[in-house]
């Protein structure tokens, strides 16, 4: 009994130590003092209330994007479309928010709904292409990412550009009522609470409901679908709609709470980070909750390090790639060495 608990704590612990090792190695490779840099990362991400709020602010879209990967993954779909869905969700949500400049507080749910719908639409395209035409979801999500981002650029540089900004490409600012409430004076906003609640709901649905069981059956052996009366086409579209919806919520909450208006760049790699979080969590929403926080910290620290220690922004991408690499290798090590972090 006790041994079991020790094991359950030991494994993630060992992994965290390993990933810290990867981070230190990376700093050595780029010629920075590793321990000092790592200490800076810790302080810049969790050292004080301000840093912690930055971390949690970044955790929010990452968690949304991770959930957006987890739901399709339960059907065996590898969606890498969080980024595009996030942009399109931000786009449609912004449209709703700017339609009603004098709206009351009712605009908040309307805006969130519009954002969710936009993301769902974007994810749904992938679902339909997969279900009806057999187009592989990884390729279509990756390509749609480019299209989604370019769509936002088009609107922000063109029709939606606020001329009062002079050269600056951005829409008008959101009306006051369309800005998600924040926790005191921090960057932590209502989106985080929504994401956490959704993670818990998804945990229950995916692991303990008939729907979750259906996905499990369809993922493992689609041939028995007809025996059970399951509809693979409907479920494929459904999981992509739900996934897109989650990322779309992430997009509009980020734009509304953090930026206050739509700009060409919304995400600093949240889609990618979300994908990694989902992979590391073994498609488990509750684990994703924790891991998203660590990745939020990583991105927040990367932002600060860029400013204060001249560590290029690209470092964050390299680091995530290295972490992914390490995770993939560990998962394939011979079983006596393996740390089955995500094999249940």
């Amino acid at each position, binding site marked *: 009994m006790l041994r079991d608990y020790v094991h359950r704590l030991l494994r993630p612990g060992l992994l965290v130590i390993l990933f810290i090792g990867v981070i230190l190695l990376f700093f050595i490779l780029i010629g920075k003092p590793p321990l000092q840099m790592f200490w800076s990362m810790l302080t810049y991400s969790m050292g004080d209330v301000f840093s912690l709020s930055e971390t949690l602010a970044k955790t929010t879209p990452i968690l949304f994007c991770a959930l957006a990967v987890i739901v399709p993954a339960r059907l065996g779909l590898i969606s890498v479309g969080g980024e595009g869905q996030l942009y399109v969700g931000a786009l449609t949500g912004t449209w709703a928010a700017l339609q009603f400049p004098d709206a009351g507080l009712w605009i908040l749910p309307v805006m969130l709904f519009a954002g969710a719908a936009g993301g769902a639409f974007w994810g749904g395209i992938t679902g339909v*292409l997969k279900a009806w035409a057999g187009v592989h979801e990884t390729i*279509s999500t990756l390509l749609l990412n480019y299209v989604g981002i370019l769509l936002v650029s088009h609107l922000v540089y063109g029709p939606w550009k606020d001329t009062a900004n002079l050269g600056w490409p951005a829409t008008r600012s959101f009306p006051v009522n369309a800005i998600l409430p924040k926790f005191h004076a921090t960057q932590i906003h209502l989106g985080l609470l929504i994401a956490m609640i959704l993670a818990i709901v998804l945990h229950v649905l995916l692991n303990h409901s008939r729907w979750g069981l259906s996905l499990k059956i369809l993922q493992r052996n689609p041939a028995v679908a007809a025996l059970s009366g399951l509809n693979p086409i409907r479920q494929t579209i459904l999981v992509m709609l739900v996934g897109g919806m989650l990322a779309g919520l992430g997009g509009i909450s980020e734009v509304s709470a953090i930026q206050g208006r739509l700009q060409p760049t919304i995400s600093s790699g949240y889609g990618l980070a979300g994908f990694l979080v989902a992979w590391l969590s073994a498609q488990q929403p509750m684990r994703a909750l924790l891991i998203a926080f660590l990745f939020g910290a990583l991105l927040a620290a990367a932002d600060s390090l860029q400013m204060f220690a001249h560590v290029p922004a690209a470092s964050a991408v390299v680091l995530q790639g290295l972490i992914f690499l390490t995770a993939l290798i560990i998962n394939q090590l011979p079983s006596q060495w393996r740390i089955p972090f995500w094999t249940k």
Partner: protein
Amino acid sequence: MDEINYTLAGSWVAASLRSASPLMLVLLGETLTQRVGIVNLGVEGQMLAGACFGFGAAAVFHDPVLGLGVGALAGLVLSLLHGVLCIQLRVNQIASGLCVMMLGTGITSYVGRVFVGAEVSGLAPLAGQFASAQSFWQPLLTQLTWIAPLAVVLTLVAGVLLFRTRTGLHWRTVGESSTVAAALGLRPRLVQWQGLLTGGLLSGLAGAVLSIDYTQTWAQNMTKGLGLIAVGLVIVARWNPFLVLPVALLFGLADTSVLRLQAAAVNTSSYLLAAAPYVFCLGILVVTHLRADRDAHMPAGLKAVFNDR
């Protein structure tokens, strides 16, 4: 009048060939890789590596040919990583490819900062000024470098290699089934490595062609998903090197048309035009997939990658 039309046609062909060359090379590489049963989404990262390091070498040593060589090697090195992950360690190929893509993107953004704004001398055109001016061949000879003919010849050579030699037979066998190949006394992993590394070399070369010959600049993420488009288009080319040529040319023609439309001052947002290749690619994927016989051409070894994990 006719002569001008010929020249115009020639310049369209030349422009299409020029813009199609990088895609042709990377598409050929991915086709060969998939023929041995490996999907490599990492070609996007490998192209970036080829573009970045190739451009760097060309700029530092003032030698475009050296740059192309270095670029091809950079692609090869990254594909080694994919091989270690999915051939040796049996990692899921899609995940492994994404990892290579991520690292390629990250490392080139990191290293490439120093190359932004650097200059390279491109390759010389096939012929200098053509005295006899107006003809169909004039723009082809003056606008094209030896890259386009090389790409065309490579696809043909690859086709012959694949369909008319024992090596090609072994590649196709491994792509159909590693188990059967092993039972027949082949060494599937070795063959897979051959196909994968060939693909790596070609994708790196494709990236270097893009930065050294085509745009003659380096910019972060400059491939803009061209590698991913290639992964999609392999299906359209039915895993057949001989079909790589028309598919890449079609794409090149579309690309050229978009650029010329824009140059002709058609009032369309440049951002929407930039999205055209992705939409176009998805469109022909849908059309190809809806044709009932698509699975008939797919190497059976890939079905495991594409259909379930």
